[in-house]
């Protein structure tokens, strides 16, 4: 049973890494930054701030929080309407 649990745990933790989640947060944050270049609206600033929080949370290994913040950042980036 221990071996099964160990294998399952390894498998469960390998999924996010395999899916590229750990690098994707940075990529998505960079994409937001590029997409909003020169845009100084409220939603653009908020998108950048939330993306920074996502990267910070990812750095602290809280992937759930990082994903939540990057989704919020993307929502606000969409409302900001792109680069200006």
């Amino acid at each position: 049973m221990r071996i099964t649990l160990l294998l399952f745990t390894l498998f469960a933790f390998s999924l996010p890494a395999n899916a590229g989640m750990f690098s994707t947060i940075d990529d998505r944050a960079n994409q937001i930054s590029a997409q909003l270049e020169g845009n100084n609206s409220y939603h653009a600033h908020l998108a950048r701030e939330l993306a920074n929080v996502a990267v910070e949370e990812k750095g602290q290994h809280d992937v759930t929080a990082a994903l939540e913040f990057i989704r919020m950042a993307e929502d606000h980036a969409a409302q900001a309407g792109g680069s200006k």
Partner: protein
Amino acid sequence: MIKRMIVATAALSLAACAGGHSNIDIDELSEARAAVAASKAAGAERCAPKLQAQAVASLYWAAHEIQEGGHATEETELTERAISKANAARTQAKVNCAPKAAPKVVEIIKLSGVNFANNSADLTPESIAILDGAVATLKRRADIKVEVAAHTSSRGAAAYNLSLSRSRAASVMDYLVSHGIAADRLTSKGYGETQLIADESTRAGEAQNRRVELRVMN
């Protein structure tokens, strides 16, 4: 047994992924929430967007840390940051959104002798020398901004006179711009027959009312 554990672990993992940690409607954030709402009401999203965004992001981050628990220092720092950024946003919004005072006329430069063909905005040849003098004045006094104001006499319909005066003001402005005066220093406005300065019982009086001025604005 193993199957049950696997199902339970998977269910817990899914629940953790689905659950958001950024609910800001919690008692610990009441002060920060109020500060952000006040800055938003003051127009900070439009007039202080960066500070307002920092306040809101800090609020959400603080909410996450509080609900996660175990980060007392971070929770306090983020909550205080949200409040201070919101207060700064509100102050900046008051400054940036304050209505600007309308410019006032501080001096009138009369362009006596600037005339147009009858019922037209075409400058007469005699007007050119006077306008060249105005160009020289505006180049010498490079810090002033002026409104080119044109007036008509009251002969004819008021609406026609207003339209004619607008065209004449625009014509003079075009001349000044085409001779090197920056367009952002100039505006043009036609006043029609609304600002008569002479009795129109004589032709001389009518001629006096047909005039162009440069109004120096502060």
